[in-house]
């Protein structure tokens, strides 16, 4: 059974249909890519899945640990608490807060102490804050950001900001991670590093990952399956090998260079 099933998902903004009858299935543990030319509706699909937009029609079902739940139209924070985390195409960190606080905020849903305890810093507050801080530091260590824990997020170099976004998404303890163009703006060396990082966290955290990416070297290297979107519709689906040789994909989007892109 698929972890995430998207069924006939449609979203129109006034007269413009950004996403039309999209069907997708993502199985537990898979790493799936979502590609397509600019304006194809990839980020809109992400925004629909994570609750930023309400779909015009269609369903999105999350089946985690045998609990099946339709999540379309739910609030983003509810969807996050069910186990979906995301990063943003144009980085959206809490820029004026420290690296540590960025991660600690994402761990807020695990906090059990109440408001009363927070007013008077009762023992339950101190105990859970210590635990929260330790877990956050562990995450930062994994992403090699622990030495910068007290820096403001805005002062991090671009690549590290992307890493911090991933750390923050992981802090919400997701079952499904959605990465929106994680390699955007990175040079080839950084992209190679990121590619390794993604495969590594996937194993380490037992994650299912859906990612949008323009960088074909990354997509072809790590994705097991790829969906291709054009004009809001899925025009192809398959393994990287199949996508490379799919006529419709080559015509609609990838052009003649496609056969070399995997290198």
């Amino acid at each position, binding site marked *: 059974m698929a972890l995430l099933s998207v069924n006939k998902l449609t979203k129109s903004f006034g007269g413009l249909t950004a996403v039309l009858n999209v069907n997708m299935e993502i199985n537990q543990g898979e790493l799936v890519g979502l590609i397509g030319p600019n304006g194809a509706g990839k980020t809109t699909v992400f925004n629909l899945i*994570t609750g*930023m937009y309400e779909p015009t029609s269609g369903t999105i079902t999350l089946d985690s640990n045998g609990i099946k739940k339709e999540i379309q139209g739910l*609030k*983003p*924070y509810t969807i*996050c*608490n069910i186990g979906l*985390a*995301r990063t*943003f195409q144009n980085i*959206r*960190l*809490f*820029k*004026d*807060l420290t690296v540590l*606080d960025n991660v*600690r*905020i*994402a*761990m*807020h*849903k695990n*906090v059990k*102490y109440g*408001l009363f*305890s*927070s*007013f*008077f*810093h009762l023992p339950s*507050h101190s105990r*859970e*804050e210590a635990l*929260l801080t330790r877990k956050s530091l562990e995450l930062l260590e994994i992403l090699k950001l622990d030495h910068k824990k007290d820096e403001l997020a805005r002062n991090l170099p671009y690549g590290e900001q992307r890493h911090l976004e991933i750390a*923050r*998404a992981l*802090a*919400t303890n997701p079952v499904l991670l959605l990465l929106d163009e994680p390699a955007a703006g990175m040079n080839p060396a950084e992209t190679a590093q990121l590619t390794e990082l993604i495969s590594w966290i996937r194993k380490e955290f037992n994650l299912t990952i859906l990612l949008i990416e323009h960088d074909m070297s990354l997509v072809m290297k790590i994705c097991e399956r790829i969906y291709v979107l054009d004009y809001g519709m899925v025009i192809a689906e398959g393994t990287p090998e199949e996508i490379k040789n799919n006529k419709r994909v080559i015509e609609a989007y990838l052009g003649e260079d496609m056969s070399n892109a995997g290198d």
Partner: protein
Amino acid sequence: MGNKAKSNLAIKIILLAATFVIIQLLIFLDVINDYLQATMATICINIILAVSLNLITGFTGQFSLGHAGFMSIGAYTCALITLRNPTLPGFIIGVFAGAVMAALIGGIVGLPTLRLRGDYLAIATLGMSEIIRIVFLNLDSITNGAAGLQDIPQFTNWIWLFIFTTGTVLVISNFIKSSHGRACISVREDEIAAEAMGINSTRYKVIAFIIGSFFAGIAGALYASTFNFIDPKIFGFSKSIDVLVVVVLGGLGSISGSIIAAVLLGIITTYLQAFANIQMILYSVLLIIIMIFRPQGLMGSKEVSLSIFSKLGSIIKPKKGRA
């Protein structure tokens, strides 16, 4: 970590106790006369108002122009209770009843209005506070309308003001330093990202609003009990602006900034009494000058650091397991 937190706490307690003892001594020696005591009361009430508004506007990022409305609810509730029950328990019940009433109204008003953003929220809160004022103005049988309530029993003295002011500052700064407080700050920083990280932004806006209203209610109750007289005019639009001026001047998102600004403005106002005719002009000019040179407020979003004191402490005391 733990040691540092403990020594910081010790420094805080020593500083607070010293402030209290010194001022108590000065009152006893009559260096601080009745007039200065009234100024001090105004400063304490302004600290409570500014710190609580800072939680709403500075930390949670919700621009509110209705703080005087919640203050008036606290003031009227406490005044009416102490007028019927002029005892010390009556006063304490009055203060907390005023605060709870203000928090209750804050929650009822906050739920629908906090869906608005920026200027729209400012206008909605302004309208709401005007509605509260007009209700008090027209409830003749209870509030005595425009004539106001006179001869409110005076229970507030320096000791009560000190207790409630430090209590407010401690509770709000503790809240800010908790996970719930960080959730409020994340809403200010980026509401969309906060929601994507599992934070119910509406919930935290309303929580901040309710806590802020609660302490505005306390400030109002102390006002009624200090100055013996309240009428609806006191809690008009300009009172909300006064509080906002303190918050912006001290720095949005800085509790120590709010305290410093409230003290500073209190002192400036006292000295400007000498120039009665041009007092407001001088006050405004001063504000303009400060805003030109410190547009982010006196403290920005930083807090006064206690590290100077812990360094002093480590010189005096032999080093022992420093964190």
